[in-house]
């Protein structure tokens, strides 16, 4: 059979217990019919377990995994192995005389691995695995108790507010942001929403209809930001310029800048939200030109950044709006409805409320 991402996604959802009954039966029949399909199911199952252990599952997948992924002895073995792979290279303390030989074997193996690294000029293999383990432990330790969650929430909100103040504290950048905001006040440039821009509706246009925007103002804003970026490439300027490129549909440039910004400041919800928006728009466009299988990675990355943004700041409307759009476009109506409803409950702008209500109607 021809393997494709859509089928793989279906298997993933089947394993997470997230498929309707009819589709579930279809997966099980395919599994009983086709060896290659069975192989792929095992690949996806292994990778789900890998991702769970590495803390790399999307939030909703992690919840489904913990709720629905039955730990049979076979899966338990898989999980234990992946845990061990993650810990590979760490010294193991075992009070067992026989361990001395094993320790020697381990040392021989480590030495061999290091030889391979030296021969191939590759970066060290063991250290990143050890790092992965410590990262995971660190991540888990964050969520040990309720008071810690509350404390982190305060820190995260504080960072968010601080960042917004920082943006407005730079008069040049603030002026540019205001100007660009004015240009898009009547109609927003994209279906996805960009942080820092006030809400504006997004009426769908006919194919031959032209967008009416003030290109002179936008060109000037771009020049000012490019000059500022050349002189002092801060995360703030990177972000603002990335958002302008995004609004002007220069998606590749926007992606590059926003990825760099996220790399520099990974705890900024707005950066994740806007990078998620770029990837969503790229996915939508690639999909409409029939490149679906190749673009699923874009969708997954977009979803991952939008979810990260909401983890960092659950009140960030733009991130939730874009996540709802993404679920709706990828035919996940239950998840889309949930996001729209959360958004509706906190939205005060009547035009934004209308758009959300329209989407909820469409889902029905």
């Amino acid at each position, binding site marked *: 059979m021809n393997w494709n991402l859509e089928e793989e996604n279906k298997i993933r959802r089947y394993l997470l217990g997230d498929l309707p009954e009819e589709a579930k039966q279809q997966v099980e029949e395919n*599994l009983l019919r086709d060896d290659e399909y069975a192989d792929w199911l095992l690949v996806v199952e292994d990778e789900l377990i890998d991702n769970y252990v590495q803390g790399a599952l999307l939030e909703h997948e992690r919840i489904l995994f913990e709720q629905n992924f*039955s730990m049979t002895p076979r899966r338990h073995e898989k999980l234990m*192995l992946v845990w061990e792979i993650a810990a590979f290279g760490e010294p193991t303390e075992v009070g067992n005389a026989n361990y001395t030989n094993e320790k020697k074997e381990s040392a021989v*193996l480590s030495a061999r691995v290091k030889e391979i690294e030296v021969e191939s000029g590759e970066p060290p293999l063991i250290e990143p695995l050890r790092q992965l383990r410590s990262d995971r432990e660190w991540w888990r330790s964050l969520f040990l108790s309720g008071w810690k969650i509350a404390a982190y929430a305060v820190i995260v909100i504080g960072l968010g507010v601080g960042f917004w103040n920082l943006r407005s504290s730079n008069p040049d950048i603030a002026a540019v942001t205001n100007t660009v905001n004015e240009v898009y006040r009547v109609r927003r440039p994209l279906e996805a929403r960009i942080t820092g821009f006030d809400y504006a509706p997004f009426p769908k246009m006919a194919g031959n209809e032209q967008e009416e925007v003030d290109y002179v103002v936008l060109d000037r804003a771009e020049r000012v930001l490019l000059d500022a970026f050349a002189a002092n490439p801060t995360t703030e300027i990177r972000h603002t310029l990335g958002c302008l490129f995004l609004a002007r549909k220069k998606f590749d440039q926007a992606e590059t800048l926003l990825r760099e910004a996220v790399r520099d400041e990974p705890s900024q919800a707005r950066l994740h939200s806007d990078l998620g928006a770029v990837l969503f728009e790229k996915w939508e466009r690639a999909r409409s030109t029939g490149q679906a299988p190749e673009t699923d990675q874009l969708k997954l990355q977009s979803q991952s950044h939008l979810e990260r943004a909401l983890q960092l700041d659950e009140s960030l409307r733009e991130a939730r709006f874009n996540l709802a759009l993404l679920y709706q476009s990828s035919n996940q109506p239950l998840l889309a409805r949930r996001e729209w409803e959360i958004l509706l409950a906190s939205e005060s702008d009547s035009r934004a409320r209308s758009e959300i209500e329209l989407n909820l109607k469409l889902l029905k």
Partner: protein
Amino acid sequence: MNNWKSRRDAWKRFLNWLSHDLEQAAYTYEAVRRRLIIFFNCRGCANSEDLADKTIDRIIGKISEIADSYKGDPAKYFFGVAHYVHLEDLRDRKRMDGEPVPDDFPDSNHQEETTEKELISRCLHHCLQKQPSAKRELFLSYYQVGEDKAEHHQTLADERGCTLNALRLQMMRLRAELRACITACRERDAST
């Protein structure tokens, strides 16, 4: 004696139903059994091998009825029987326990798990050493997690001149090999 003979005949008919070529039928039987084990495992059954055998036994018991008359997709038939066997198993377990068996979600910090992990750790080292160096290097590289895992795996595939999907399949088989080796290693350890 008659019972044994009728069972042998039913087996023959079953194999013949799978394929007229005996060698191919034996291969198909193994493949069907493997897929049934995966099926029951996906449904959360701890005894997936027993249930796979039970399903096959059930089909063999019905073979005289289905061999000539059943015209549809055999997968649908297998699905129907396996589904029924699973429901029976759930019912039996409920009867025995009084309530559904709770999910046994492992906790990495639990003491028993820790001891098990130590054993697996030793066995993993041992089993990795038994692998050819190219496979060992691939395994370790695959789990070297950097900024972008997908990109890293694509690079590994490119370096080996294969597609990403081929690499993922290769890794699935390698993990299965390692698990089998680790299981054997643990059994050896337990018997000494």
